[in-house]
């Protein structure tokens, strides 16, 4: 159950296990653990096993690829034909998707069976998985704590070894922050590398899908499947195909790692600060050099984000009106009454707050002061990164200011919750690739995440740094003790 995708690939290729057998094992583990963790919204063993049988047939015919037969869980934000696709919301609690997202098509074509759809913050709005209509996910390291969000179910299921890998999406940190809080590895690609077609939209200029797994090597293999041009996403980039695993064995000698002084200030304390310092020392031992860089406008990234993301969300979520699909209120007087009640009943309070912020900042008389000012700050934040990358090859920081916090600890104050993403949000605003990997534990035994930020399209190098670190450390191999485990 501790197997990486890479080792499952070897097992399958050697004929030591079939995809059906692997899927049965994972489905059994999901059944045993999901009652307590709530990491999955939908599981459908018949569908999974049908895909596993097809994968075994594909391998038998000699047409399988590297990952054919290895299963994966998908965040419930990805439309998958015939699967309930809720996005964590009551609004889509009856939505059986009639089509596949591009990412789902890619994994199907690779012959990777879907183990189920994972729980998430409603419409990906949250940093703790507590805004889900389907209830919070529990952190496998401590059931009283949150897994992070919004891809909390994906992070928790990989940490608890209910799946060898999962997909996630990241608008302000939603892959990296839960990966950090659950002790796994997760990557947000450069904006435009992974198609957003069929990925339910939150903030379209920031949303990006990516892989979550135990190791950087597995993330590279998954990104090879996920990435690629798709004409149905108008922001999908037409670039030559690349092998994201090509830099994994690159030694770190001469690598310049930038340390932003703004991220190593007084806000960084305790065990997180210590673990990150030790990770830096380890990377230096592997031959990397460090250089101090500045990201002077990064302190305004959360403020700018909470204008831009809600503005885009208020527009994207206007499609949920009870007319064409999803929830419709049972009783209404007229069309406006139907819209207002459908949306009041179908959306949870965090989603409503963000739609209202977005509606306000885009309204007449406020547009320049908020929306345009935020877009100008976005430019300054992106320029800071460009300047920093003149001096370094990758940037390093903590992923999150704290380890996993308690359920209910931050739900009363939205602003406090938003500050969980202070180290990750600037990366989305600039459109850069970023990842989180495990780098230690705090005194309570909770995992700590290390963030790497790459220059545009520099995923392969960033993954190489992470892989070299993981060859020298074993933080990524630690897993939580689950009930029933030997």
């Amino acid at each position, binding site marked *: 159950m501790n197997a990486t995708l890479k080792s499952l690939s070897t097992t399958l290729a050697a004929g030591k296990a079939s995809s059906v057998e692997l899927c049965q094992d994972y489905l059994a583990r999901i059944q045993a653990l999901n009652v307590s963790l709530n990491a999955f919204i939908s599981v459908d063993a018949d569908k999974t096993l049908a895909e596993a049988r097809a994968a075994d047939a594909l391998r038998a015919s000699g047409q399988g690829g590297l990952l054919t037969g290895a299963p994966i869980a998908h965040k419930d934000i990805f439309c998958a034909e015939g699967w309930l696709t809720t996005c964590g919301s009551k609004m889509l609690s*009856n*939505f*059986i998707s*009639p*089509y596949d997202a591009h990412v789902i098509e890619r994994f199907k074509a690779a012959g990777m069976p879907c183990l189920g759809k994972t729980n998430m913050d409603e419409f990906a709005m949250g940093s703790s998985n507590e805004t889900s209509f389907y209830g919070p996910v529990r952190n496998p390291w401590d059931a009283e704590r949150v897994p992070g969000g919004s891809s909390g179910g994906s992070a928790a299921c990989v940490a608890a070894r209910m799946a060898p890998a999962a997909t996630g999406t990241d608008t302000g940190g939603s892959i990296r922050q839960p990966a950090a809080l659950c002790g796994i590895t997760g990557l947000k690609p450069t*904006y*435009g590398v992974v198609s957003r077609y069929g990925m339910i939209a939150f903030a379209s*200029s920031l949303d990006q899908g990516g892989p979550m797994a135990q190791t950087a090597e597995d993330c590279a293999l998954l990104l090879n499947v996920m990435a690629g041009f798709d*004409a149905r996403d*108008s*922001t999908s*980039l037409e670039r030559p195909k690349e092998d994201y695993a090509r830099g994994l064995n690159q030694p770190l000698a001469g690598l310049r790692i930038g340390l932003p002084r703004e991220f190593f200030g007084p806000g960084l304390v305790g065990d997180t600060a210590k673990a990150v310092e030790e990770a830096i020392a380890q990377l230096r031992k592997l031959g990397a050099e460090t250089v101090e860089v500045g990201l002077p406008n990064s*302190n*305004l990234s*959360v*403020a*700018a984000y*909470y*204008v831009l993301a809600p503005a885009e969300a*208020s527009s994207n979520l206007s499609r949920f009106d*009870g*007319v*064409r*699909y*999803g929830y*419709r209120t049972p009783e*209404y007087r*007229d*069309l*406006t*009454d*139907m*819209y*207002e009640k459908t*949306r*009041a009943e179908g*959306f949870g309070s965090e989603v*409503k*707050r963000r739609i*209202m*912020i*977005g509606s*306000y*900042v885009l*309204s007449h008389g406020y547009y320049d*002061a*908020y929306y345009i*000012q935020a*877009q*100008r*700050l*976005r*430019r*300054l934040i*992106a320029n800071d990164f460009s300047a920093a990358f003149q001096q370094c090859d990758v940037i390093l920081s903590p992923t999150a200011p704290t380890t996993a916090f308690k359920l209910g600890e931050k739900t009363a104050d939205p*602003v406090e919750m*938003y500050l969980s993403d202070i180290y990750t949000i600037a990366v989305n*605003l600039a*459109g*850069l690739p970023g990842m989180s990997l495990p780098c230690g534990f705090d005194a309570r035994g909770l995992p700590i995440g290390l963030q790497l930020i790459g220059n545009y399209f520099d995923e392969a190098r960033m993954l190489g740094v992470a892989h070299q670190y993981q060859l020298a450390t074993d933080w990524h191999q630690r897993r939580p003790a689950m009930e029933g485990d030997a």
Partner: protein
Amino acid sequence: MSLSAEDVKRIAKLARIRVNEDEVVAYQSQLNGIFGLIEQMQSVDTAGIAPMSHAQDLFQRLRADEVIEPDRRAAFQAIAPQTENGLYLVPKVIE
């Protein structure tokens, strides 16, 4: 800046979300907290900085004006709340 209860009701109306009086009170306090965070933006002089709407310099791709998608109306309407003769049904808008 501080939002009044009337502002909250107006925003909810713009967003097509029904709110009751208790919710107005809660949203007013939460939204004002969030705008307190957002106001930090005003501390920076951004005169002369071009707004950045997107991470990449993109242009709108165009395609030939040809039918490329199959007709899947039945599949899409099968999941609609209410349809009739291939049309989506909503409450009467014009008398």
